[in-house]
């Protein structure tokens, strides 16, 4: 299978300091890749580099296009939907307005997508007129994912969607993401601290440490790696 996203020797910088030191990474078309790593390893920075939100070097290829020189809004227009760390919810706007914003770059009919999202996340349909800031954490995460999917993206990028949520809620959300990946043919790049759940869903996995990829391979191989089991899975 071909890669829809490929990073080749990507470095990233905050001001003068280099945070990523040459990363290679791929997401298969229609697949799910998980990026693991401790706090401060550079996971978020990797995602920000993909979306043109930090200065970077190296090659970033998306569906045959070079992304390095593109602006964040152009990259979104190409079909990369990024749910950032902290979810990026427009808290002062209603649930439905949040979804309409997500459809800004969409080419299709926003209304159809909205019905589709209400199908995956029925709770959002109930809360459509409420202010997004008044939703619970889990509901806000669902809203953020639904907002991202409103553009009918080819790649969904999720930065720690489980952050601060109860395990049951996390499982429910991951289940829906997995369903959406299969049914909507969208590829997924997932950053997670919850390694066991992520490795069970993904097909490829990368382990990041202080700006380097230290291990990569099939998710299954990483899940069976004794060292990873000890450091990240805790058994």
């Amino acid at each position: 299978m071909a890669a829809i996203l490929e990073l080749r020797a990507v470095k990233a910088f905050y001001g003068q300091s280099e945070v990523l030191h040459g990363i290679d990474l791929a997401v298969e078309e229609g697949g799910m890749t998980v990026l693991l790593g401790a706090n401060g390893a550079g996971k978020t920075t990797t995602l920000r580099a993909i979306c043109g939100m930090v200065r970077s070097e190296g090659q970033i290829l998306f569906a045959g296009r070079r992304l390095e020189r593109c602006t964040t809004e152009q990259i979104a227009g190409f079909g990369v939907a990024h749910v950032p760390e902290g979810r990026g919810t427009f808290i002062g706007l209603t649930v439905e307005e949040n979804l309409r914003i997500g459809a800004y770059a969409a080419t299709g009919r926003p209304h159809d997508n909205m019905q589709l999202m209400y199908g995956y996340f029925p709770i959002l349909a109930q809360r459509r007129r409420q202010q997004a800031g008044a939703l619970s954490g889990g509901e806000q995460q669902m809203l953020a994912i639904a907002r991202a999917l409103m553009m009918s993206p080819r790649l969904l990028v999720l930065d720690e969607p489980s952050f601060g949520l109860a395990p049951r809620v996390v499982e429910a959300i991951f289940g829906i993401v997995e369903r959406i990946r299969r049914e909507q043919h969208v590829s997924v790049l997932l950053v997670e601290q919850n390694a066991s759940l992520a490795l069970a869903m993904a097909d490829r996995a990368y382990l990041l440490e202080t700006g380097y990829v230290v291990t990569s391979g099939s998710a299954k191989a990483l899940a069976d790696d004794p060292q990873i089991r000890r450091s990240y899975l805790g058994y």
Partner: protein
Amino acid sequence: MHQFLQQVFSGLAAGAVYASLALALVMIYRATDLVNFAQGEMAMFSTYIAWTLVNAGLPFWGAFLITLAVSFVGGMAVERIVIRPVENAPILTAVVVTIGLLLIFNSLAGWIYSYTLQEFPSPFPDRTLFGALMTTRDLGVIAVTLMMLVALFCFFRFTATGLAMRAAAQNPESARLCGIPVGWMLAVGWGFAAAIGAVAGIMVAPVLFLDPNMMSGVLLYAFTGALLGGITSPIGAVIGGLIVGVTENLVGTYLIASQLKLTVALILIIIVLVFRPNGLFGTAVVRRV
């Protein structure tokens, strides 16, 4: 009682002008955390454009609409050319830039049009209504302002661009990730603010007479109105502007010499800052961590 109501109505007409300019200030403040001190002078300059067009023989409302369009484009240009380079600079730098703009527009107007007072035509007939309770001119100003507010409300509430502008103002980074060109949204915001200011300038010019310093007092009242409304709330700005207009008029009639009316604004600012730093409507949106 009759005189009191009269003063309330003319206060509302003045307040409608302050409300418009306050709204322009709030729009830019929400999008960029910046108080545009040049908003009044931009409005004054727009009013000169309208004056030139009317003098050239255009019908008033034709000149009005052309002025709005020119101001819109001009406001966008100011954002792209002058404000954008200091976008990431410390906020004080940007404030100084707007003060510089104020001086530039003021001198430019003085240089082109001179500092002499010019008469500016009112589009409304000079009559009184309801037993001299209000004048058609005041009513006209209030009506034009109301129509503008309704149009703006519909734009921001119902159109995709309006929604994108609100999103860009609220969370620029997340808006970019949704594909919204945030830079252009800011420019359009400046365009709207300039056009709103133009309406304020054109509405107030028949009363104040046109000269390059026409808007300095109006800006102060508008600023008071915006603060009163909580500086981040568009509705608050409108209500705040109206309150300032009425207060100013009543105080000027009953309490102090009308030459001292401007102090009312300063006193109001101080009262607001001391007792309600968030203004009347500046409550934060519902937040949950």
